[in-house]
């Protein structure tokens, strides 16, 4: 089972291009085939279900139907919000099987209610993929101290097929170890970054994300790892403004999970899109060269 229907979501075609690039690069290195689904639309993110539950379901169903039509396999996404919404749509369909025909009619296509929705990090943590990664690590991260950040949506919805324990997930930390890094024990892994308030209420994001950055830095992190384009935007893109406002004397590179794994697999940093970050990622400084020689 190495083929996946791929749903990038809006961000990965825009502000989070480097996430898309790194997902494709890592998938390629591991021999995983991604088939981007045709005619996908917005997952609805937070606004849809906050305003109208029905619309949120329709958006989710639309994409599940396109993924069913694609037929490559489980539906893979890199965005925590897309992941959460697509799974919520699937849960809803399974909870109300009687409503399934109407839902299918509304979105113009059959929906496989058992279609598995996977987050990229979840896929990387699967035993077979893990083993493949372990076998192909050529540039272990040399104990690089990484603060894993889950945010709110990655571990939700809970219940069947959940990403990980919602209160105490360890999946990202395991991936950091797999890449030869050292996960930092820090308490705010599950706190909110401010999400989409970056536009209407930037001060809130500055406070919330500022707190995350300060705590990760205080606990010795050299970098942060995320699995969500919006978290990344708040922590990376907004970081210079936050740093000015909060008078930080540090800059914390923020990497996507696939960039961390990609580096360990020896993929060229440019291919992983690391040059696109606002806070510069100085790979050679972060991963001492002598570590690379051991390989």
């Amino acid at each position, binding site marked *: 089972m190495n083929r996946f229907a791929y749903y990038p979501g809006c961000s990965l075609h825009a502000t989070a291009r480097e996430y898309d690039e790194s997902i494709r690069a890592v998938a390629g290195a591991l021999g995983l085939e991604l088939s981007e689904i045709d005619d996908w639309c917005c997952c609805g993110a937070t606004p849809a279900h906050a305003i109208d539950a029905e619309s949120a379901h329709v958006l989710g169903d639309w994409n599940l139907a396109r993924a069913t039509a694609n037929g490559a396999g489980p539906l893979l996404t890199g965005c925590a919000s897309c992941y959460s919404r697509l799974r919520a749509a699937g849960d809803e369909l399974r909870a109300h099987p009687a409503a399934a025909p109407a839902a299918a009619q509304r979105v113009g296509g059959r929906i496989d209610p058992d279609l598995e929705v996977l987050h990229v990090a979840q896929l990387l943590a699967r035993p077979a993929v893990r083993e493949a990664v372990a076998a192909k690590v050529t540039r272990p991260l040399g104990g690089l101290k990484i603060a894993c950040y889950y945010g709110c949506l990655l571990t939700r919805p809970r219940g069947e097929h959940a990403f990980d*324990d919602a*209160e*105490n997930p360890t999946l990202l930390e395991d991936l950091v170890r797999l890449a030869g890094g050292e996960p930092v024990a820090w*308490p705010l892994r*599950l*706190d909110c970054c401010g999400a989409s308030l970056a536009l209407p209420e930037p001060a809130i994001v500055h406070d919330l994300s500022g707190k995350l950055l300060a705590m990760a830095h205080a606990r010795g992190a050299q970098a942060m790892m995320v699995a969500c384009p919006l978290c990344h935007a708040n922590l990376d893109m907004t970081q210079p403004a936050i740093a000015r406002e909060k008078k930080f004397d540090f800059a914390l590179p923020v990497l996507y999970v696939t960039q961390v794994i990609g580096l360990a697999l020896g993929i060229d940093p440019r291919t992983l899109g690391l040059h696109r970050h606002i806070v510069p990622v100085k790979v050679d400084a972060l991963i001492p060269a002598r570590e690379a020689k051991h390989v």
Partner: protein
Amino acid sequence: MSRIGVFVCHCGENIGRTVDCAAVSEAAGRLPGVVHSVDYKYMCSDPGQNMVRAAIRDLKLDGVVVAACSPAMHEPTFRRATAGEGLNPFRCEMVNVREQCSWVHEDREAATAKATDLVRMMVEKVKHNEDLFPIQVPLTRRALVVGGGIAGIQAALDMANAGIPVVMVEKEPSIGGHMSQLSETFPTLDCSQCILTPRMVEVAQHPLITLHTFSEVEKVEGYIGNFRVTIRKKARSVDMAKCTGCGVCQQKCPQKKIPSEFDAGLGNRSAIYIPFPQAVPNKPVIDRERCTHFKTGKCGVCAKVCGPGAVDFEQQDEFVVENVGAAVLATGYKLYDIGNPDAGLRGYPEYGGGQIKDVIDGLQFERLASASGPTGGEIRRPSDGKIPQTVVFLQCIGSRDPARGISYCSKICCMYTAKHALLYKHKVHEGKAVVFYMDVRAPGKGYDEFVRRAVEEDEALYLRGKVSRLYEDNGQIVVSGVDTLAGIPMEIRADMVVLATAIRAQDGAARLAQKFGVGYDGHAFYSEAHPKLRPVESAAAGVMLAGVCQGPKDIPEAVAQASAAAAKVAVLFSREMLEREPVVARVDETTCAGCFACQQVCPYGAVEVNEVRDRQGRLLRRTARVNAGVCNGCGTCVATCPSKSLELAGYTDEQIFAQIGALIP
């Protein structure tokens, strides 16, 4: 020809609303062998019972069928009435047309037809009923108490004071249980040790109480009135007869950094130790896991300094057999360990998983607040001994959360948390006490008043909400939670956090229950025989329950239950012989092939091996035999027996087939 009377009860409207009782009675009256059939509004009432008695007397009935509620409810009532007229009570049977008919059906016509069928079946059965006589079982007037906490102590003292010899088994080196660890007790704030230790001494000195501490129940054989209990007396490594309890050994023991169980890990003890100064017996025990002598063969300081030469490194576990007629289980509880949960529970890693020193549980707070505790009663936090200026108390940790595996309420935490907040404020006047709660449950005499006192007089800040995370930051603990009444997220920097962790059944509770044949729930709390009407008896005859082993409860409730259990034992022992229902299995030894399949399936161990011998005493064969004193009449053996050599009195094949036959048109 039989002379059967049928009595159909309306149960007020309970049956009459759905079943046409007059029609049922009329149909029954036409059955062959039925000489009398009536219906009545309340058959269980005095006039109703008199109708039954008058009919038996005047019409010379030889069988009685009462169509009414469940036999669990009123079978004893009608059998008593039957016996009152000189008819064998086992010739009276009940048909359940309430729980099994009127309550579960709506269609009056169909329900009436079903009730008529049920009555017809029972009439056919009763025609085959025979006289049965209660089984007489001798009994040993001596009781076992398992557990030496407050519940066990109360039960033992009540029984002993009623003249019943008691054997008490306690697994720890001292009796006293958790109550001995408590500081002051709600809602009156009496000192726990001051009210408990005199009772502990009374147990030790009572001429009718035999005390086995540092001991566990190894094996239980026998049945009500006649239990044979094997007790393992664990090797104390100290000769109790020689030891004077002077305490020099524990002073001189070089191993002094062992976390004290009595101080809930907040204080230290030595390897040879008396758990606490008021321990009963006040004699030490060697912790062989930690003793240098047992680990390396060296040291032996305690033996050298012991004047009477009581230290005995060679001592072995000893087994004692005690014969008793009844037992009271009072094994108590343990607290949910957030860092080391077992039984599939997930713990609270988001609260530091037991790694944050200043996040403690309720028993640890008790030790901090106790005059006999490691801080002499001053509230000082474990990490650095500082007096905490802000203490946050979290209720319902582990409890009332089905997602975490425990759905029940631990019942005592609302009260002890209020007490903790209040004690803290009494000791640290300028301190701030914050309580996160789900609901405050304080239904007890003076209980709600006590909580209000903590809130109003001692100004504990009660916030309704849960805490999502605790983490250390700059020597403090950040408490992130939510105040759901104000609707705002809360972040409090605390110096110490006290968790009201869930009450759980004691380790080994399930194993002990299995030894006694006592039922237990999914959390290993022991099951009472009836939740309302038999709350202190277990379903295993002769085994009573007291205290938290049956479910979370506070001290007065545990004591009340213990006294009730003692009274139940006293009732049991008030008779010369025990009478048991004769509904037991019996073996036809002429056809039994001796395969002992029945012995394999019997849940009560009632099947024994019977040796058939000729006149010269030569063994001819072995057959099964049912010990009527042990048999509970479940019928499993009857269904299993391949040669159909077993039958259950009162439920013979003949009777069952007669019932089935009545159903076939």
